[in-house]
């Protein structure tokens, strides 16, 4: 059972933080790699972020909260 850490991505060069605005897969739900997983808003633009792995999603973050780039906001429990 490997674990993929979900982090706020480095969506562009000039940002150091982003707001988590949407969790597109509910707690305990399943996601496939490449499918939309969450959405973040930086000061300039809102972007959808794809899952980096397939598995069961567990969030460790709150919506409408500002996170540092790279901050952990959940995990994907991959069923191997």
């Amino acid at each position, binding site marked *: 059972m490997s674990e993929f850490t979900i982090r706020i991505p480095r969506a562009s*060069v*000039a*940002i*150091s933080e982003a707001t988590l605005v949407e969790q597109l897969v509910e707690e305990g739900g399943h996601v496939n790699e490449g499918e939309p997983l969450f959405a973040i808003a*930086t000061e*300039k633009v809102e972007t959808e972020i794809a899952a980096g792995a397939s598995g069961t999603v567990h969030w460790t973050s709150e919506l409408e909260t500002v996170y540092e780039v*790279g901050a952990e906001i959940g995990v994907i429990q991959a069923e191997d």
Partner: protein
Amino acid sequence: MDEQVMSQREALNLALDQALAADERVLLLGEDIADPGASGPTKGLSTRYGADRVLDTPISEAAILGAAIGMAMDGFLPVAEIMIMDFIGIAADQLINNAAKLRFMTGGRVTAPITVRTQVYGGLGTGATHSQSLEAWFMHIPGLKVIVPATPRDAKGLLTSAIFDEDPCLVLETIRLQGQRGPVPLDPSFSIPLGQGEVKRPGTDVTLVTYGRGLVESLNAAAALEAEGVSAEVLDLRTLVPLDVPLLLECVSRTRRAVVVHDAIQFAGPGAEIAAMVQEELFDVLEAPVLRVGARFVPNPGSAALEAQVYPSVDRIVSAVRRTLGKPAAEVGGDV
């Protein structure tokens, strides 16, 4: 004067927008400042004012500043952008040997009222050549003004003053502060006089003298110190040249202790001049030497984790303040 909460990037955008609207002499030039490529404070302006007043240029920093000087000599008020402060070395000759010295060298007959906006990318893991804070270089050049706003309100007020100032002005915008929000006056005539500092937090035991991003760490440090029963005043200089020495001396003569905080490298940085001035004027009033908390004397490492250790932190500021309070070394955490 009605106000609106906005980000610092939006406040800078509003200042540029209102200057372009208010005065035909104003124009902007720089790399990728026009739509659709623009992403910073100039976004949207070429669409509103046309590509000849918000002019995309080739990547030619020396020529960008030289051209701005030539237009300024002939009655225009150009606002040139040097995208990232580390690139300013390429254009330094135009700034240092032409813009700064024209008024003096021509006995006042020729002047170059240009504004140069540049952006500091420090603290974003962009490495040694895309992160530097080089304001100390330009403080050393008679004829140049150096402006470093920290809040959205100050950004708008100071940029507006710089654009219409008769002397060449260098405005440093800090990328890490671009997203910070705050109330900003909407009136186009709102401006903050250059050379006027502001006490951003009152206090009685020590004065944290700062500017730019240093304000954020200083306010956090002041809050931490309050929990220890230490009342820290935070003085935001806002401009380095002209420098509000009267307010600086008034504050420190009251608290009798001072720590200077800035993101620029501490060695031979702006804090060295500020500390020297304070100690020369207030030697017999000071309870302790003026200390400085600035960046370490190293090129910024590529790794963001390492880079975080380069800059002033709340711990380093608090430790410095404890030292000025004569607290025993044991209580002094962190390396100062």
